[in-house]
């Protein structure tokens, strides 16, 4: 009699436990489905954005924009130099310069000393070595 009682109690407990597990599994499935839907949606959004980016960055558009807004030209031969062609700065002066500017404290650059940036004229960048290996196949 006691054994039956205990067994039935155990069964009831198991049933209750099973029920709890099942409901929690169900709610996790729901969560999973929701996340999957979300991922799907995000993927779709990414696709749309990627396509939009590709459309906006297509070469002929960039070409049109650049020829209208920037005075850029194909890099000519005389603008490309091997790294060795650039003379090194005299070795000692580098450390001295740095030491000097460091010692002068934070308020070195006063308004009068600040480089004047012309507001309207276009500053032409100086010819400088172009990294030839970066991005090259």
């Amino acid at each position: 009699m006691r054994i039956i009682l205990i067994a039935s109690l155990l069964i009831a407990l198991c049933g209750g436990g099973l029920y709890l597990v099942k409901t929690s599994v169900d709610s996790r499935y729901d969560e999973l489905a929701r996340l999957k839907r979300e991922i799907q949606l995000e993927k779709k959004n990414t696709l749309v954005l990627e396509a939009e980016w590709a459309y906006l960055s297509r070469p002929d558009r960039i070409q049109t924009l650049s020829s209208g807004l920037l005075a850029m030209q194909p890099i000519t031969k005389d603008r490309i130099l091997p790294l060795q062609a650039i003379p090194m700065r005299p070795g000692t002066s580098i450390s001295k310069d740095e030491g000097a500017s460091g010692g002068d404290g934070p308020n070195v650059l006063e308004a009068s000393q600040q480089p004047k940036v012309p507001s309207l004229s276009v500053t032409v960048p100086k010819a400088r070595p172009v990294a030839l290996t970066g991005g090259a196949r």
Partner: protein
Amino acid sequence: MPRQPANISKRPWLLSLIWPARPEPAKSWKIARGRLAFAAFFACLCFGGIGAQALQLAVFSENAKSYQKPQSVAERGLIVDRRGRLLASTLPVMVLHADPKQLLNPRRVANSLAPLISDKSADDIYKLLGKNTRYVELDRKITPRRHAEILQLGLPGVFVSPSSTRLYPQGQEAAHLLGAVDVDGKGIAGIEAGMNDALARGETVQLSIDLGLQAILRREISSQIERFEAIAGAGLILDMKNGEILAMASLPDFDPNHLMRSTDKARFNQAAKGVFEMGSIFKILNTAIALETGAVQIKDRIDVAKPIRISRFAIRDYHPFKRALNISEILVHSSNIGSAHMADKIGPQTQRAFMDKLQLLQPSNLEIPENARPLVPQNWGRIASLTISFGHGLSVSPVQAAAAISAAAGDGFYIEPTLIKRSTDAPLTRSRIFSPETARAVRSMMRLVVAHPSGTGNFAEAKGYLVGGKTGTAEKIKAKGYDRKANRVSFVGTFPAHDPRYLIFAMVDEPKGQKFSYGYATAGWVTAPIVKRVVEQAAPLLGVHPIAEMSPEMRLNLLPEVIIDGEEAVYASF
């Protein structure tokens, strides 16, 4: 039994509840029944409750599952260029459709939908809605805002359902290569058809094409077509070291997003599907074969004063020379007579064998359906062999010509061209056709075509990049034989000439002489400048450095002792 009650009283109250002492037999029977009834009732309640709950859950979850539709089958894969830039993508769109049987008032529906559908008037829609069917498609691509507005109208019988469409964000760039898909999303041309299986599985296909180079090549060919009032053009850039096609253009072209608005002519991929008599650029192959077989030596001289007469044909030179030319001069001055004499020494059998090894006698093997079958002469006798030596009588596609010339002008290996990016660790199959010495001689001569003042390709000289090349001007075949006025001009260039890495091919169809070109519409005027401008713009992108004047490596890789017009040749003219 006096001990019993004492025992009961001894036990603690809580323990007696869980583990009661044995009662009197008469009483215990009653208690047992009561307990049994209680236990049975409780068990029934529990199991009944759980069972009911389980049943309800099972039924309910069946329903719940039906809400989670299985996700749609794999979307068609992307096509990207070698740097991962998007060339073709599949986008979700909304399709607006209606069921005419469910409409209450078709006239009103048509009127209210008309302002929301861009390319149909109210009458068009009304006509569509009057059809005796259950499905009428009104618009394939509606924007989210339109979608919301249509939902706001709340028209019964009008539906919006999700679908997808193939999008080519780069428009006309690389249109022929990419091809197109039909309404069911199945590839019908280009890579879309050639790689349909992989794309249908949702895989991303990475091409060997570089979108930047593609844009440069297309723009330059297109501008030259305009300048010379030509009717068409084609071109490609080939990586000679591994056979990857970096750019491939055919003009006129079309927008694959609006395939139906294009003409058949625009949809034709001339670079891969068109076969042409390549003209003088075949002299590169002829020279290479002659040197390789030992039919001629580099210092041999051939008399080109007299035209060759063979049956009813006469082989003449565009610029006749009244003297003997050496092998380099024959290529630099593009002498048909000299080339024909060389072919005579090679012999038709050997020539055919080499053309076969260079894959010029069977269709190319690109990953697109548009692979042209070359036009090979039925009877490869002496006449055929003489004309083929200067590029007539054998019609091949530009892709085939480029791959063959890459073997002669590069390192002597034939490498099958491809449109799919090769992985760096995959072994490269290449077959040696020409010896390194032959290749060295050929690239030296090609450099002189561009660098020497009397060469035909001077306009291809992109200073610093050592372009080597060869012009080709072929008369087009019209109704009766060749048409002297209608030419197809081409140029094949390689750079840097001392160790060729990239090959550029450009072809323009029927250019007309212009004032600025003094009436000329030859390859030297029309196509050589294309190669120059492409090299100037592409070299920095490809990481090719400008070469120092007469650097040691250049001396090592080009022949020093070539004599042109009685003087030792100079490869660089900075």
